[in-house]
């Protein structure tokens, strides 16, 4: 699956989930429609989004993206605003899992690539081949979690879990005996 690849560069580390969507906006019970709240907690966040390419679907940021709270609303708001990937040298664990479960690819690349990627207007990203083609003709390979890649591309986390119920019950029964 290929992305449009228009980049929203955010030259910051440690973008926490309070910045992605602040707590006072977590009062709903639906997972859609949160795009309007994206980056409302980030200093300068609204201006950043206003300046973004209308088809921007990739964020490039520095390390530890998505740290802090477990709120899946962070992934929901990114997804709802049209973002399909975040490229960063590292992600906080809970956000990393949430992103996979909501069609937002958490793409880990070495820190040395970030300067170049922050400067790119458009990248060619193929989530199936796990490659980023850069404007200078180079290719960066990344690795997605092979199990979660399936949830990323097709959804189905809950269906996967539902299928495991008999096995889990069996495991539990064996443990009890």
């Amino acid at each position: 699956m290929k992305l449009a690849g228009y980049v929203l560069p955010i030259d910051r580390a440690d973008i926490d989930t309070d910045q992605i969507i602040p707590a006072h906006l977590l009062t709903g019970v639906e997972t859609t429609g949160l795009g309007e709240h994206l980056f409302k907690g980030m200093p300068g966040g609204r201006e950043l989004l206003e300046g973004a390419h209308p088809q921007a679907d990739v964020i490039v940021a520095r390390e530890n993206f998505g740290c802090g709270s477990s709120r899946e609303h962070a992934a929901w708001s990114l997804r709802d605003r049209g973002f399909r990937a975040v490229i960063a040298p590292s992600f906080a664990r809970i956000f990393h899992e949430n992103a996979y479960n909501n069609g937002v690819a958490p793409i880990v690349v070495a820190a040395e690539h970030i300067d170049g990627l922050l400067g790119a207007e458009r990248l060619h990203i193929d989530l199936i081949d796990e490659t980023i083609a850069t404007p200078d003709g180079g290719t960066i390979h990344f690795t997605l979690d092979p199990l979660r890649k399936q949830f990323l591309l097709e959804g189905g986390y809950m269906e996967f879990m539902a299928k495991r119920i008999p096995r889990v019950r069996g495991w539990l029964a064996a443990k009890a005996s």
Partner: protein
Amino acid sequence: MPQSLFDKIWEAHVVEELPGGNALVFVDRIVAHEITTPAGALEIQRNFGDVLFDPKRIVAIYDHVSPAKDTETAIQGKILRDWAKRHGIAMHDIGQNGICHVVAPERGYVEPGMSLACGDSHTCTLGAFGAFALGIGTTAQAGAMLAGCLILQRPKVMKITLEGRLAHGATAKDLALYVIAQIGFKGATNHVIEYGGSTIESLSMDERMTLCNMAIESGATTGLCPPDETTFSYLRGRERQPTGEAFERNVARWRTLRADSGATYASEIVLDVSGLRPIVTWGTNPGESAPLDGTVPADASAASLEYMGLTRGTPLRSLGLDQAFIGSCTNSRLSDLRAAADVLRGRKVTIPTIVTPGSQAVKRAAEREGLHDVFQDAGALWTHSSCGPCLGMSMGVIAPGARCISSTNRNFPGRMGAGGRVHLASPAVVAASAVLGHIAGPEELAPVGAAEASVR
């Protein structure tokens, strides 16, 4: 092969190895609160026939916005409540509730060796009991409610050995901030921190919870304290724990939950904390801290300084404050309130000060000791239990540019209100600062009664 404590707990819960180094990990207990649970409960209701793997393993706790502040949060609460009732899930509703990480242990829902998950990053608090307790997203929680399991990458294990007794004035909060400063704000990402050493052994369960509460602030999946007699005596007689023989049988089993000697770790750190002094954050993440006696560091990041309205070299003690807050899952248990009350007894606060007990049970216990009188005599606001000002979601929001000293765990930009500035510290430091109106330690306060004496 000798195993770490975490290895043992992990292996006892792996149902199935999955591709890509993932594992299907059984969850013994799910804690559900009203902000992150409803969407998952609705998903199961809409697509999977409203069934749960085992409602008896779930506990619902009304916590973040308690009581509801508007229609939307009332709907969240109603969905949680109706769902709990429908499935016979134990629920701690408004009036018998509090912050889930405070209520769950005080009611005995967590125990050594268990796996426990909740849609809240500070679930790591409960690692203090020697449980694998971790925060997860709503989808992962829904999956666990449906199928009893999480999909996890096996975390690495970082061993942190703390040696020495805490000196007078140093608290578990200072210890937590110190550890984060040592290993870095993201230094334990994808790791479980296994604590050990004489310091841990000397800490009460409240203190261990304060320490483990902030494991996530170094990126850790959770913190883990080896269970010992302190753990067992805390749990003995708790509401959800068995009594008599049955409890003692569990204790015998828990006593075996120890790291093997010779266990290997991804990394090991030993810290002598006997000289620890109070610590306060100056920046915009919990790793950006300095000793209370210190200054804003010379290598402070420009972005943090700008947000916090600070310059390098400024003494922390000189910083004027607009609000003080004592509460949150880090520091709102009875021992924390006692520490704050010891400072405030006979004194007056000079800035708006909010004291929020971590649970209604803590509130009642504090009132039986007269702590509510101490706080209110000092001029502080004594509230019901809730997350309160901690996350700028319900009450106690601070204005842009306002500076708040807080016993909470996060000082991210906007955490307690858009543009607000948060300094993290222990309850005693928050209380002393509330009296003086600037960041201060209890030793700076005039003896109680001295002020009146000098006036006369």
